Each structure stands twice: as C-alpha cells, then as structure tokens.
C-alpha cells in the first residue's frame, strides 16, 4: 500500500494557510474578558486540523508544535484558563511561527529551529505559568526562560532536526557517470573540504570497467570521505551544491551528536508579520548580487530558484459558478448540434434558421466567456483579511489607538490582481498608520476621538475596481510638501502647482517628509514603487488630503488582467496592439512640426511640448514598406514611465478588446513586447509594452 502522499501536499499547505488565517482572525476578534466560546472553538478546530494533517503527512515538527497550542486552546475552551491579552499575543506569535514552519517545509527547506524554540518556550511558559503576572505585551520581547520542561518538549527536542554543530562528518559521495562532463572536478571539492578540517578519503573502484571499455569522460569512481571538522552540515552540503544533481550524497555525523542543551534564551528573533515574509520572498531573488564569475552565477541561480515561491497554485471556486458554467457548455453543445443539423441538408430557405442559430451561438459564447472569467474572480477579502493583524501589531508598537474598518470585502476581482495588489496596499496602510493617524493625546487636543479610524473600502465602478484607504489622521501639509520638494531640488522654486500636483509629489522617488525614520516607513522609497506597481497592473492612484482631517488614497484597477482594450496599428505588414490606457491621442503631423536634435533625435512639437518620435519600423526592424517620413504615417502619442512620446506607425486599424496570451509560456520575454493576442482572422498580433519601449528608445 504505497500512495504517493506528495500529490496531496499542495492541498494540505493551502488548507493549513487557510486554517492559520482563520485562527488569526479569530484571535484578533477575541474580546478579552467576554469570551465567545464559538470563537475559541473555531480557533481550536483550525489548530486541530493542522495538527491532524501534519501528522498524516509526517511533518512531526508541526504536529507537535500545534499540539501545545491545542492544549492551551483546549483549556481556554473548557473555561479552565482565562483568556488574557498576553495569551492571545503568544498564540498570535505561534500562528506566525507555524506559518514560517509550513513555508519552509513547502519550499523544502530546513525549519528554523531557533525561532521555533523561542515561540515554543513562550507557549509552554504560558501553558505552565497559568495566568502569570508577566505583563509584557509581546511574545517577541518575552524572555522565554523555561524552567519546567514538559514531557512534550523534551520529546520534541529529541526529534528535532540536528542543526547543532558536530565533531565531524562521514560523507558518501557517489557521482553519476556524467559528473565530469558537467565540468565538475571531484579533486576541487576535496580540496575545499580539506580546508574545513582533516579529510580522509577512501576510493571505491569496483565499478570501474575493463580498460578497453573505459570511457575517460565517465566517472566510475565513488568515495567514502571522513571529515573531522566542526563545520555544520549546511557548510559541508554547500561545497557539494554544484554537483548535487550529478551525484548521490549521503552525510552522516561522525560521532554521536553531543546533546547540547539548546539555549532557551535565544537572540530575540522577531517574528516577522506575514506581510514582511512575503515581501522578502518576492524581493529576495532581485537582491541577489549580480554574478561576477561563472561559478558564482550558478550558485546565485540556485539561490533564486530556492527563494522563488512554488509555481503551482490552485483556486477555490464556488460550486454555483461551476454549475453555471456546465449549464452554459450544455447550451453551446445544443446550439452546435442544431447548426450541424441545418448544415447537413442546407437549402436557401433555411437561411433564417441559420442566422438565428448563429445569433444564439454568439450569445452563448459571450455568456460562456463571462462565466469563465468569473471563475478567476475572487473576493477582495483575500487581501483585506490580512490587514486587521497588521493594524493590530503596528498600532500596539506605535502606542496608537486605531480601528480598521473594512467595507466591500466581497467585491470580486481577478486572482492575478488580488495577488499583486497586496504589497502596495500593505505599504499604503503602514503609511497611514505611521504618518496619518496621530498619537492619542494629539488627537484629543485636535478635538478628534482618541481612537483613529482607517477605512479600507472596495467597490466596482465601470470596468474598474476602486480600492480606497481613508484615514482620519492629520492629513498632508501641502506647504510642507512643496517646501520639501524645493529643498530637495525636485521642483523649481518659482513653480506654480495645483493642489493635486503638490500631493502627487509624494510619488517622486526619494521623497519623504517624515522627520524621523522608523522601521515602519519614512525612507521615501515606497510611494514611487507603489505607483509603479499599480501602473504596471494597468491602474492608477489618486490622493485627496485635507490638513487636519485626513487623507484618502484611491486605487483604480482593471477588473481583470486577462483582457485589455487595445488599438491595433499597422506597421508594414505587421499588426501591433497598443494598450488603449497608454494612448493619449493620435495625430497626423506636418513637416513644420518636426525638429531634429543634433541631426538625429527626432522630435515634434505638440502644444508647446517637444516629444520624441519612436519609429516602430526601425525599432522593430520591419522590412516591408512602411511610412518612412513622419508625415506619411500617424503619430500615436503615448504615455509610459511618466514620459510622453510619439510612436510612428503606418495607420490605425481599429479598437478592440483583446485576450492577452503569454509569449513566455512557449518562448521567452521579448523586449518591447508585453504579450501576444489572437486577432479575428486567427493570426497572432503582438501587444506593445509601452513603458518598455519608451525606456528602450529614450534611455
């Protein structure tokens, strides 16, 4: 009876993360002093199913850890234990810790035993210490000194993966035949190993064939190595990291591991909030230093591969949506067979019937398209649900009193948008928490309620979803913004700017008015990134702010990333699609409007502004007869990267909605092209990446 359990892992992890989210929101909504037994039940159930699942899949570390949480929750449920703020904080910390553990397991990494130990001892202190007098607010800061280890814990320690230092390693290194062909030299590996300590090698040559059958390029030898060193397992493994895929490698500790008592007061590892964890994952591959040598490159690539989140993802769909879809498919099949019947013995008097059939087919197809798109739609609460925790943590840290109001959580939006909007929103909310809402005393002085409010609101408008972040904080001081911008040389002193323009200054790179840097925000690197991210999703961001009353930041996003409004343009024989959102206008120009800068760069004058011309024909190397002079074609004025510029094309063809297809799926990314689509006649057209093209040609 051997079932490959790994096929269920993905589902298990998803369920666990869902369970963790349920626990988190349950914990946050626990009203200290007045406990709703149902709320505790919910948390308990989530913990219980995580424990059960991880036991089944053999993730004992998780199962045992959850067991302690469960014990604690069980006592709370039975009323044997008071629910204190401290206990809730410890449990929240454990949720983070569990999430970390599960993420590591999912990425097939080692669990960070140190941070697990910190959280675990905090939990146990809570469990054993009854309602202790310790009033420290945060788990992180709790010096977790464990005096009475419970039986569970010592058992846990025995089974924990050994990360402690060892006396030495016994390494069985059995390369595959092709090891040498991949350019690896075992001698070099041994040299590196011997740098770590004393190395003894034993060669096995029983697999070496007869001399006349010997292929000098094949590696038929294997080695048993003994390394006496205090290097850790990971250090030793790292040396083999380049040959990992070309060999069988076994590492076993030389001596019986010395049982060290794990230092319980580990360095206070701060429990990162979920948001931080995620940003790390996304950013990490980017900050890998640029490879300097070929060897280094290999390692940095494996790094980025490791950090990359697992590609496969799944989606939970309402059964109703699927039923609608099946219904729709049935209709299409019926219409299709009806049309088939008409076609079999076609006579001219059936034309009316045929037309009716085709009209029906068209309607069904459109409905079908809509219901399929619907499947990708998720309620925005997937994003919003993380924010109560964020607000809870940060407001505690800042000693501010803030309530978060969520409105329109069930507004549906494309899954891809949901995934990508999270980071910008986290940033904006942190900003509101840190800069927007004042300290309680300041608020009372200003005649406002002591508790600040941040409202997160989502609704549909037109083909867009609007997400608003409204705070009733101090608002932005326009004169201060302007003064700062002038001081930094971002605007001219004499510039006359509208209120809106002044507010938009905060999107300039390097702009921050915060007097004090904090670890939450204020470095002035955020807002430009936020705006760029949102623009790359095809949306835009607006600010309204009134001094003393608060600010509103509104994000407009397209409902889906799969369909785009495009203008098709012709360049020679080629057809390209320009996204309609980036087009400002299209004009015919005359010779008179043209200028040349230094005899090369062509510009044209549009209402007192000089815009560069990008000749699509040249940049895309189109050979067939295209407009060679700007006045023979049409200039499409586009905005990309905040700069205006004119694309010279032969003619405008028409506007249409296009379905975006990825070029990367089967080929690779092409500069200046963001994707492809299929036109009405079945041919492929490329969608232009306007910001990319502007960058390509201007810089």
């Amino acid at each position, binding site marked *: 009876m051997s079932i490959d359990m790994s096929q269920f892992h993905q589902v298990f992890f998803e369920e666990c993360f869902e369970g963790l989210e349920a626990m988190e929101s349950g914990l946050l909504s626990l009203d200290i002093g007045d406990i709703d037994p149902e709320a505790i039940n919910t948390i308990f159930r989530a913990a219980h199913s995580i424990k059960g699942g991880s036991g089944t899949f053999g993730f004992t570390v998780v199962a045992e850890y959850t067991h302690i949480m469960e014990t604690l929750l069980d006592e709370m449920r039975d009323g044997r234990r008071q629910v204190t703020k401290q206990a809730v904080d410890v449990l929240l910390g454990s949720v983070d810790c569990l999430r970390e553990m599960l993420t590591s397991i999912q990425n097939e990494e080692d669990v960070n035993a140190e941070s697990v130990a910190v959280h675990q001892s905090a939990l146990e202190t809570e469990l054993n210490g009854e309602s202790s007098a310790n009033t420290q607010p945060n788990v992180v800061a709790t010096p977790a000194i464990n005096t009475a280890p419970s039986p569970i814990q010592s058992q846990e320690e025995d089974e924990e993966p050994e990360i402690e230092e060892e006396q030495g390693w016994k390494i069985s290194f059995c390369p595959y035949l092709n090891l040498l062909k991949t350019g690896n030299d075992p001698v070099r590996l041994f040299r590196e190993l011997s740098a770590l300590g004393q190395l003894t090698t034993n060669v096995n040559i029983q697999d070496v064939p007869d001399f006349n059958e010997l292929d000098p390029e094949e590696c038929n030898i294997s080695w048993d190595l003994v390394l006496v060193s205090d290097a850790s397992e990971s250090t030793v493994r790292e040396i083999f990291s380049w040959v990992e895929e070309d060999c069988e490698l076994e590492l076993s500790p030389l001596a019986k591991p010395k049982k060290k008592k794990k230092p319980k007061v580990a360095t206070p590892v701060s429990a990162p909030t979920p948001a931080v964890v995620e940003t790390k994952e996304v950013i990490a*591959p980017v900050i890998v230093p640029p490879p300097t040598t070929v060897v280094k490159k290999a390692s940095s*690539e494996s790094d*980025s591969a490791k950090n990359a989140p697992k590609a496969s993802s799944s989606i939970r769909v309402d059964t109703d949506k699927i039923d609608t879809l099946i219904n729709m498919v049935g209709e299409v099949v019926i219409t299709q067979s009806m049309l088939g019947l008409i076609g079999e013995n076609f006579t001219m008097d059936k034309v009316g019937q045929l037309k009716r059939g085709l009209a029906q087919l068209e309607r069904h197809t459109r409905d079908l398209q809509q219901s399929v798109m619907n499947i990708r739609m998720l309620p925005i609460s997937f994003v919003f649900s993380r924010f109560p925790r964020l607000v809870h943590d940060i407001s505690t840290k800042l000693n501010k009193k803030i309530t978060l109001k969520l409105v329109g959580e069930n507004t549906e939006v494309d899954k891809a948008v949901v995934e990508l909007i999270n980071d910008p929103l986290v940033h904006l909310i942190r900003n509101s928490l840190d800069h927007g809402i004042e300290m309680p005393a300041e608020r009372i002085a200003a005649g406002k309620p002591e508790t600040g409010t941040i409202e997160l609101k989502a609704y549909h408008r037109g083909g867009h979803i609007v997400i608003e972040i409204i705070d009733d904080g101090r608002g932005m001081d326009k004169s201060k913004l302007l003064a700062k911008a002038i001081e930094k040389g971002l605007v001219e002193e004499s510039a006359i700017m509208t209120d809106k323009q002044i507010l938009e200054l905060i999107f300039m790179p390097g702009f921050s008015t915060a007097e004090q840097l904090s670890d939450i925000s204020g470095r002035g690197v955020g807002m430009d990134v936020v705006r760029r991210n949102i623009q790359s999703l095809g949306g835009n961001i607006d600010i309204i702010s009134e001094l003393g009353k608060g600010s509103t930041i509104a994000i407009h996003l397209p409902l889906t990333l799969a369909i785009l409004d495009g203008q098709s343009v012709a360049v020679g024989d080629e057809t390209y699609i320009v996204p309609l959102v980036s087009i400002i206008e299209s004009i015919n120009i005359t010779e008179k409007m043209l200028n040349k800068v230094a005899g090369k760069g062509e510009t044209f004058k549009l209402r007192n502004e000089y815009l560069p011309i990008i000749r699509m024909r040249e940049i895309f190397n189109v050979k067939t007869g295209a407009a060679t002079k700007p006045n023979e074609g049409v200039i499409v004025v586009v905005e990309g990267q905040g700069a205006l510029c004119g694309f010279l094309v032969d003619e405008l063809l028409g506007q249409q909605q296009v379905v975006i297809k*990825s070029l990367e799926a089967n*080929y*690779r990314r092409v500069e200046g*092209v963001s994707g492809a689509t299929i036109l009405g006649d079945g*041919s*492929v*057209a490329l969608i232009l990446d306007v910001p990319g093209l502007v960058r390509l040609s201007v810089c």
Partner: protein
Amino acid sequence: MKVDAVNSKQIEQFLTFELANEVYGVEILKVQEIRGWEPVRVIPNTPSFIKGVLNLRGSVIPIVDLRERFSLEHSEYTQKTVVIVLCIKHRRHESFVMGIVADAVSDVLDIKVDEIKKAPNFGTQLDTRYMRGMHVYKQNMIMLLDVDKLLNPDEVDDIEAISDIGRFE
C-alpha cells in the same frame, strides 16, 4: 550502466523528416502534431531562425526554421512545407511547445535503442551536441535530433535569466 542494459532491448519510434535532402528524426513521443505551413507573425529582435509565432488553438507558439538553425541554404516555403509541433522539456517541470519547419515528413521508424550509433565527432565543423545519434536505414543515414537540447537554443541562459526577471516584475 544498468540503465543501458535495460534500454538496449527497447525499441523507440522516431518520426523522420526531410531537410535539404537529408533525413532527420525526432522521437515520436515529443511530437504533438504536424501541420501545413502558414504565415507567422514576426517577433522583432529575435534570432533569424525564429521565424515568428503562430496561433495554435489559442496558445502562441514560436516556429523555428531548422534550415536556418543548421545554416543550410534557404528555400521557399511551399505547399509541401510542414510544421512539426513538438513538446519540449525544459528544466525538470516546465515544458514548451514549439514548431519546427521541415521540407516534408517521411515516415515513422521503429529503431532499437542499441542500433543508434553515437554521432561521430566532426570537430569544430559541426556541433553534435544536439544529436542523439545516427541510424542507418536502408543505406540512408538518419540523424536523430535531441530536440530538448536543440530547441533550448544557445540562449538557454539568457532565456532563464530573462524569464526570471519577468516573473518578479
């Protein structure tokens, strides 16, 4: 070594096709379908052997001209020109769909694995990295291509680097 012993008893099927009067073969398990030549959409700024992209029932697939890939003389595309659509394995999990242009498809051959001869070394004149081997059939030499390597062209590193960037944008 053990693996070879098992394999030698096996028979693999190869689809053979003509290219400039030479016969080439690809593993039939890689072949997804064969279609007639139709005009493709040119992708700007790509190597010349990438003819462009094609709409294959809704997915956009690149088309590689093997004549250009092998630096053979160019010939006009005719009614007989075919596109062999292949499913290429890339790294461990990903797979790509690509088309190759051939003059004509000829046959499906059963070839015993141990009858595949290693491609001789042509030195610098010819790159045999993309060859799985040679096979003699009715006194004709058939070159068996390793499409996984061939169609992950030289730019394989670039492709990875670029797609990595794309993923995190």
